[in-house]
């Protein structure tokens, strides 16, 4: 093993230890499917490992990993686009099947997840990145390759859409 390879492996191990669970959770929130999130998270780290040697030394590894994860999620959502053509009752049934009611806090979390999944991906991604992952609009713009103004607009619309979507789940709240 070359010294460069050893450094790459050490860096990958550090990134993997630190970000594997957050990336997995991020993908799960985006997709709402645990098995698919695990598959995609694996692909994220396989891609990351391959691209790591070419990554600039001053790169923001966290943002870089989330960008890879977001691209993987977009690809997956494009493949799942067919679901958008299903009649609304069937979509609701699928969502309900994906998040069956659970006791205690599970009910609340499932309602949040269902409300989130009703948002179009172009709104869902910036909302999660800003609200859950804590990124700034400028970082999200770089990550998604769009303008800061576009991110601000999408974030605002995402919040409004989520407010309405979540209201369907929790009529007395939000």
């Amino acid at each position, binding site marked *: 093993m070359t010294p460069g390879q050893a450094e790459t492996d050490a860096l990958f191990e550090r990134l993997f230890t630190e970000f594997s669970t957050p990336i997995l959770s991020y993908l799960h929130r985006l997709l709402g499917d645990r098995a698919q999130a695990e*598959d995609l998270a694996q692909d994220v780290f396989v891609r990351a490992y391959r691209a790591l040697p070419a990554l600039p030394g001053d790169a923001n590894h966290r943002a870089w990993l989330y960008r890879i994860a977001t691209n993987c999620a977009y690809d997956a959502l494009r493949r799942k686009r067919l679901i958008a053509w299903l009649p609304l009752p069937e979509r609701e049934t699928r969502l309900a099947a994906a998040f069956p009611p659970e006791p205690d806090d599970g009910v609340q979390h499932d309602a949040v997840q269902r409300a989130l999944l009703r948002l179009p991906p172009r709104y869902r991604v910036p909302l999660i990145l*800003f609200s859950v992952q804590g990124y700034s609009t400028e970082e999200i713009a770089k990550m998604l390759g769009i303008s800061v103004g576009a991110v601000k607009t999408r974030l605002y619309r995402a919040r409004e859409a989520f407010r309405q979507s979540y209201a369907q789940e929790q009529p007395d709240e939000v």
Partner: protein
Amino acid sequence: MRCDRIGPDLARYRELSPQCREQVDRHLACCPACTARLASYSAQDQTLGALPMLRPAPGWLERVRAAAQPGRRFSTGLTVTQRALALAAALALLLGASLTVSATALPGDLLYSLKRAQETLRLHLTVGEDAESALREALQAQRRQEAGRLIQAGRAAQVEFEGQVERRDDGVWLISGLPVRLRDVDGASLAAGDWVAVHGRTVGGVVEAHQVRVLTRAHPHPTPHTPTPAAGQRAQQRGRPSSSETGPAQSPDHTPARQGSAAPHGSTKPAATVAPQGAATAAPTPGATPAVEAPSPTAPNQPPQSPPPGSGPGPGAPAVTPPGPGLGSGGGGTASPTTGGAHKGF
């Protein structure tokens, strides 16, 4: 600042610059609606942030780490689920191909055990006594066919089959068209028309039998050469091969008894190609039980059954085993040599 312009700033309130936030706060101080909207956005952050982190499934971290390591990379671009499905499809194809190939396997071939296992499964899945009986008959015909193909190919292998004794030529018995030479087996009790189970080995153009078990007699002893019409009728009633299966070679002595005989499909021509070597003159091992035990004269027409487990010949015992006396009371009139309890295992 107007309400319809302040929305995007409220959505990203936490990152507003001091100057921008001051303007927004001034508007909020006099606008309850926008204040409520900011509160709802703040609640959104708390709600979304409270979503639990997904715990990786057991083994997931190791799996991902292994997948990312050099030399273990996935070059297919498929996800884990897709790879699992592809693997399952490949295995199904392999199994299907193996089952297809094994259909022509002969004893001694690599896939022969797979063929037999498939047959056993078919038997277990067959519903109805008639269907099961028919399947057993078909499988027995296949056993005879396999033995015939082995003999034709000059291959040596262990065989077992059931068939009907046709005649004896120069020490070689013809059983359902297959030449059988008895080895250490007393064939004195065999008679044309008997239905027997043969265990042996294909050697030198014949089946060298080390065990021959009489499943049903064509004639009750001690007059094995006296044909009884009832025997042929009984054989037909038990689902034996029909008369259309009767082989062309017939012994004049046993013509009536051959009504139920069966010639295996594709079997070798009898006797003509078989060298008469080693006639069945071997005597039973000293100390062994008598070679022949005639069926009970009180029940000559009872359906035969194989002896119960444990009552068969042990090492050194004579291998020609006649049906036990007075058997068949529990088997009813539908018992057949291929449906009896002793034959469940093929």
